[in-house]
């Protein structure tokens, strides 16, 4: 099943050259393995998030379908694919020109350095290749045992939870996780023992009861909550839980294999989370280095036009969105310039003479050091919060837009710095996803789930919310409620297994 092959000959020589530049500039990284493959293979890999052996699911097929067409229609062309593992895998497109390959290699070393050094990636599992493959094996096994459709439908439901994550989990090193699991295990055993004390029924009977309660996954069946599900106890410290995948994995009335699948998918979701939180920085950093390495070192004069062409394509601005490559690279350059010249700190900020500010140069030369430090400790939000200045905002011609119901289109709203910054940060909060917490898992004292959407100015898409709650119901098996704000009014909506509707209060 080898569709990609290690690089050799000219590409290998290039790799060695580019790698030396990266080392000279002070980039550090896990070894990078370059492989070369054709467009179809790149599509296959990209469709599966870069991992060649994931669990079977139709949505990877959909991704593949769209990607492989993208090339034909010329909408998108994947130049690079880098996987955050140790060693770090990167794929080169065999049809690319030499100048493209150089650019991609330089770009890849930027990513590889970021993956290794940025704090948010500290806890990602660098053996993810194996982990993903194991998940694939496990899930295939379940499919053989329980039927592909059944398992796939369950995975569809779990996919609805993929953004219900708690970013703080990323701070937990493997050791912390292990410790906590042990604690939980002992607590659980304690619980069982306690149960035994006040309960004459044997463990066997109990587990039988439990398995009775864990019904087949079908919404038609009315689930009688088993009396052994102690909702009160479960609810004790549930409020504010954001790691909803984990909560359901541990507490929902589901089969072992189902909770195992939630576990697998949760692990994968957390693995990708840091990439979602650092898109701007990561792309900015990689672009900074491809640009630096190419223009200062690797470019031949005959390649300049081609490089400029590709580079400007990557850096294109769009009126509908902020291009992370563009904003990222510009911010790193701006920081470097400011720390080289000393355009920061009290004195500079309090200076009101614009001319003086313009030509401010204290010859500090701290720029390079500073950007290395920044790439270590920030994520997109803190990065922008700290370094997105008014001058920068104006220079980059950034604006906010909003939907005008009167004309039925999105229109430029403001170029006011404060408004823009607020909007940007809001877009990045919680990796751009609505913040959802569990309020109670024993709502109405009936074991209902009550979620709270922590409203930060933007309403939920209700039709999506309805479908999402349907999927949570499939797992939780009892009514799912959500408290949110719609058009400035507080609502609680419920999905009760039949329909989605506001709760009459």
């Amino acid at each position, binding site marked *: 099943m080898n*569709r990609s092959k290690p690089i050799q000959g000219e590409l290998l020589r290039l790799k060695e050259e580019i790698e030396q530049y990266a080392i000279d500039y002070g980039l550090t990284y896990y070894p990078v393995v370059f492989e070369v493959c054709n467009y179809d293979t790149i599509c*296959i890999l990209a*469709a*599966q*998030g*870069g991992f060649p*052996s994931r669990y*079977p699911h*139709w*949505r*990877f*097929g*959909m991704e*593949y*379908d769209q990607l492989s067409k993208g090339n034909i229609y010329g909408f998108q*062309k*994947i*130049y690079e*694919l880098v996987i955050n593992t140790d060693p770090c895998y990167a794929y080169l497109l065999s049809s690319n020109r030499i100048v493209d390959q150089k650019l991609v290699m330089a770009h890849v070393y930027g990513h590889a350095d970021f993956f290794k050094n940025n704090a948010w990636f500290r806890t990602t599992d660098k053996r993810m290749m194996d982990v993903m493959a194991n998940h694939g094996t496990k899930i295939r096994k379940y499919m053989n045992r329980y039927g592909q459709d059944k398992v*796939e439908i369950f995975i*569809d439901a779990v*996919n*609805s*939870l*993929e*953004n*219900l994550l708690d970013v703080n989990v990323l701070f937990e090193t493997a050791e912390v996780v292990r410790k906590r699991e042990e604690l939980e295990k002992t607590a659980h055993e304690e619980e069982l023992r306690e149960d035994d004390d006040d309960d004459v029924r044997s463990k066997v009977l109990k587990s039988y009861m439990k398995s009775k309660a864990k019904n087949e996954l079908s919404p038609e069946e009315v689930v009688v909550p088993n009396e052994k599900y102690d909702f009160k106890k479960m609810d004790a410290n549930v409020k504010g839980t954001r790691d909803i995948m984990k909560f359901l994995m541990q507490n929902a009335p589901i089969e072992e294999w189902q909770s195992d699948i939630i576990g697998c998918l949760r692990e994968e979701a957390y693995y990708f989370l840091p*990439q*979602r939180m650092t*898109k701007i920085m990561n792309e900015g950093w990689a672009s900074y280095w491809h640009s630096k390495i190419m223009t200062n070192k690797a470019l031949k004069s005959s390649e300049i036009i081609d490089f400029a062409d590709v580079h400007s*394509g990557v*850096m*294109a*601005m*769009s*009126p*509908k*969105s902020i291009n992370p*490559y*563009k904003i990222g690279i510009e911010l790193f350059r701006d920081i470097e310039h400011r720390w080289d010249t000393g355009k920061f700190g009290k004195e500079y900020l309090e200076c009101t003479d614009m001319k003086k500010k313009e030509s401010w140069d204290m010859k500090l030369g701290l720029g390079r050091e500073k950007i290395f430090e920044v790439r270590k400790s920030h994520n997109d939000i803190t990065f922008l919060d700290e370094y997105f200045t008014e001058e920068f905002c104006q220079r980059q*011609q*950034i*604006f*906010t*837009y*909003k*939907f005008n119901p009167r*004309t039925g*289109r*999105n*229109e*430029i709203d403001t*170029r006011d710095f404060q408004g823009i910054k607020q*909007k940007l940060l809001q877009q990045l909060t919680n990796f751009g*996803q*609505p913040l959802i917490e569990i309020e109670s898992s024993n709502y109405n004292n009936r074991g209902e789930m009550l979620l709270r959407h922590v409203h930060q100015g933007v*309403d*939920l898409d*209700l039709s999506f919310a309805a*479908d999402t709650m349907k999927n949570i119901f499939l797992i939780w098996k009892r009514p799912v409620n959500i408290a949110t704000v719609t058009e400035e009014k507080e609502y609680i909506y419920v999905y009760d297994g039949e329909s989605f509707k506001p709760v009459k209060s």
Partner: protein
Amino acid sequence: MDHPVKRDHARFRKIIKGRIRDNLKKYVSGGEMPIPKGKGVFKVPMPQIETPRFKFGDKQQGGTGQGDGEPGDPVDGQQGDGKPGQGEVGDTEGNKELEVELSVEELAAILGDELELPNIEPKGKKSLESTTNKYSSIGTVGPDSLKHYKRSYREALKRQVATGTYDSKNPIIIPIKSDMRYRSSNTTVEYENSAVVIYMMDVSGSMGDEQKEIVRTESFWINLWLKSQYKDIEIRYIIHDATAKEVEEEVFFKTRESGGTLISSALKLCREIIQEDYNSSEWNIYPFHFSDGDNWSTDDTKLCLEILDKDILPNSNVFCYGQVESRYGSGQFYKDLHTKYGTDNESVILSKIKNKDAILESIKDFLGKGK
């Protein structure tokens, strides 16, 4: 050896087809048509199947962008501007329209499944024999241009090994005339069934745009089905008011005449076309007539029935009459046909198409008998 993702892909396509099937009624009555993409492939636009997640409402969200412009200027450019560059592992959440490509066979299968259409049994006598040549075997004689080098050298090697003139240290092989092998053709006989569909449409004043839209949609799906059933299919178009003429496809759907209606004019032309071009012992012939049922006179209707009985029915697989309701049409022609042929006739199928929602049902009327 296929990558597992190809299996995911096959699964995705299966799901998609299911979706299209579930929504077929909506598609058809919405007048939405798959867009032909050449070579028997159609593009079916459908909304992206997004995994439901809690997400922000689009409209309200607004966003940030870069570039020139004053407050109040629109930012909705054409799709696809912006990032031409790179795709990156991670999550790309776009609201892309999903465009699925389906072949004629796949699309027809969906239609067939949904309407439970039986396969058509082509008339036995109408099988055309055709021979095709494929160079799939090897012979000992032939022109140099068809020489099969590998096989020739293999023969030579065999000969040299057998005669002991092969030296593995100096492996030079020289073929002689008897070693030469040539690609030769295998003649295969294929039986083909050919069909012709002759569409006739009343374009008199009383037929409005909506009626034509119905005919257009219906004929698209009928063609699709027949294409999947016959190897070879020709389609001819006739429009008529008081006179009839044969036209190209575009014209057929765009013309609007005024004036009266003589249905016989179309049937006469149809008869001519059959007699001149389509020998009914070789062709499966499908005349379709769409009208709002308003004919000029009872005399003309009599003439119509005569032409049908004498010339058209004996030569056709089945004659189909679809009546679209219009505000002006009396619908008399349907009644007349019904009186004569009834609903259970082997060679005439009648169908009333009230509105767009009735299109699928009507297609089922026409094709459901497997004629």
